[in-house]
């Protein structure tokens, strides 16, 4: 059989950013993959330099639709470090609370998509239905399902009322039961396991060498979690577990993410039980004194890092953002080698949960005859579904 090349993307929203994957195949087996980024490069780092510090927070909120709170917390922490602002304890607890709610809805979204890509649509429907529970709770607190706008430099913008706390407790009761159910289903159901076990595998050494972060690294046995290793917000005071697995495949990734949903629920309960009283923000100066700082944050997908420099003005001098997906891309390329075409959708879905279900095209080109066949994504999924 002749070699084939399958371009997946760039107009292929398997990731939150359109990316171009070019798979070189030998028969059914992927020989190599080339990845090209930048299709939604919006110049946010540069744009921050033309905005005031507070305006930059709102722009940074929009880097990602899923982990918006991660980015603003990371940015605000860096600015607060430069300005020497002491964030009130209640604000730090609320930041952690929203961060864990964000992690739960991100992981549930991932679980549903993973289910969808392996043909287990019931899991997709269930996981996304239950994700609404956490989104409703976020909306009750912040007024928004995504891009909550909770952070400001020096603290948070909205307080939790007693009613919010009560509503969150009932949401937690539902989620706790459902998380247990998903753990049973996803990790015991034989067809689901069959599609994930051994697929998209990286070793622990590869994970370290390729700079992998977050659940992708933890699934390969790398025991790293910034909430424990570089505590920020309220994590220095909260007991929780770091979930790791050994195998480095997608089943391990599912195990880690499901375990993390349960840990996030535990953290939320602890925060609600121990929420300190007091102010939720300190006043931040309009001009930030000269200086630079680096802030790190354990986003749902891994280490988010922001470098911020001020020259003493009312605008940032430089904002540098490295989101976790960029760090994980090398590992993705590595884990694609030697997999079957049938597993491409689940590996793509397995690495990043941001996924908008618009129309997708795949072009198959026979190298020798030059014959080109254009398939819709659903057709490809159907053709290669095992």
């Amino acid at each position, binding site marked *: 059989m002749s070699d084939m090349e399958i*371009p997946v*993307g*760039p*107009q292929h929203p398997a990731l939150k950013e359109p990316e*171009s994957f070019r798979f070189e195949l030998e028969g059914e087996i992927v020989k190599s993959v*080339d990845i*090209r980024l*930048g*299709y939604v*490069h919006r*110049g946010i*780092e*540069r744009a921050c330099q*033309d905005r005031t510090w507070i305006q930059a927070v709102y722009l940074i909120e929009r880097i990602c639709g899923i982990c918006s709170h991660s980015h603003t917390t990371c940015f605000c922490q860096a600015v607060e*470090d430069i300005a*020497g*602002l*002491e*964030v009130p*304890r209640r604000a730090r607890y609320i930041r952690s609370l929203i961060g864990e709610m964000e992690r739960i809805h991100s992981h549930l979204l991932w679980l549903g998509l993973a289910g969808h890509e392996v043909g287990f649509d019931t899991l997709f429907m269930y996981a996304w239905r239950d994700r609404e529970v956490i989104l409703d709770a976020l909306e009750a607190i912040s007024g928004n399902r995504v891009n909550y706008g909770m952070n400001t430099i020096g603290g948070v913008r909205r307080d939790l009322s007693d009613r919010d706390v009560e509503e969150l407790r009932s949401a937690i009761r539902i989620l706790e039961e459902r998380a247990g159910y998903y*753990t*049973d289903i996803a*990790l015991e159901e034989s067809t689901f*396991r069959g599609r994930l076990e051994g697929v998209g595998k990286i070793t622990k050494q590869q994970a*370290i060498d*390729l*700079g992998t972060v977050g659940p992708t690294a933890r699934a390969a046995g*790398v*025991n*790293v979690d910034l*909430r424990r*290793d*570089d505590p*920020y*917000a309220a994590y220095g*005071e*909260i*007991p929780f*577990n*770091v*979930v*790791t*697995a*050994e195998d480095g495949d997608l*089943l*391990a990734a599912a*195990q*880690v993410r499901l*375990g993390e949903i*349960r840990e996030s629920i535990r953290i939320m309960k602890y925060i609600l039980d121990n929420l300190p009283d007091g102010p939720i923000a300190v006043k931040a100066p309009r001009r930030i004194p000269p200086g630079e*700082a*680096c802030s*790190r944050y354990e986003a749902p997908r891994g280490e988010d*890092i922001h*470098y911020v420099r001020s020259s003493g003005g009312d605008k940032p001098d*430089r904002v*540098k953002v490295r989101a976790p997906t960029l*760090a994980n*891309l*090398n590992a993705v390329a590595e884990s694609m080698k030697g997999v079957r075409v049938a597993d491409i959708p689940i590996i793509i879905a397995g690495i990043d949960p941001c996924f908008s279900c618009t129309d997708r095209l795949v072009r198959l080109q026979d190298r020798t005859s030059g014959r080109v066949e254009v398939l819709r994504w659903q057709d490809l999924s159907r053709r290669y579904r095992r």
Partner: protein
Amino acid sequence: MSTCNERTQGPESQATGFPSAGPTISSVPERSPVVPETNSGPDHKPALGAEEDLTRRVMDACPGLGLAVERIRPRRIWMSMPSRNVRAMFSTLKGIWPDLHLSTITGLDTGSAIEVIYHFVLEKTLVSVRLTLDPEYPEVDTVGDILPVADAYERELHDVLGVRFSGRHSTPPLVLPDNWPEGYYPLRKSAKGGEKDVGHGDTGGTATSRA
């Protein structure tokens, strides 16, 4: 803790709700909620014993490379060094700390120089090493062969600041489109917003190889 090879068997553990071959859970004990660790206000002087000790060991490991300590903060070490020694430093450190994690590489234009800052993690501490490059011809050796993840960060810096990385066989664009005008670097102080009208064009056909 059992390994994942045993996944197919084993009843659920009552304690965790996971199959017995499930993930490993390492516990973070409850700590006393007294001293906020992340922020250091003007009056707050945290103990920096571990960071100072790590700085000493890094300095001892890299003699003669011109490493200089700028400042030490909680879980942050800021250093600077001459740009010619960056490869030597990373090969040495990677030999001593095999789990060295390069978080990212920041580049910035200060107006009088191009600064390149390598942020990497040693023993849970973020070490930032600053290189100062000539703004006319910013060039530094690649570390992509020592730390594969650096490939993406170097390509990004080349795109936005025009930093050249010698030793790479090519530096294809990562974040900017393929038809972006050569020599126009958006994060340079000299770059004016809105000056260039660059369509994204059809870049999908030019997949690039990884170094």
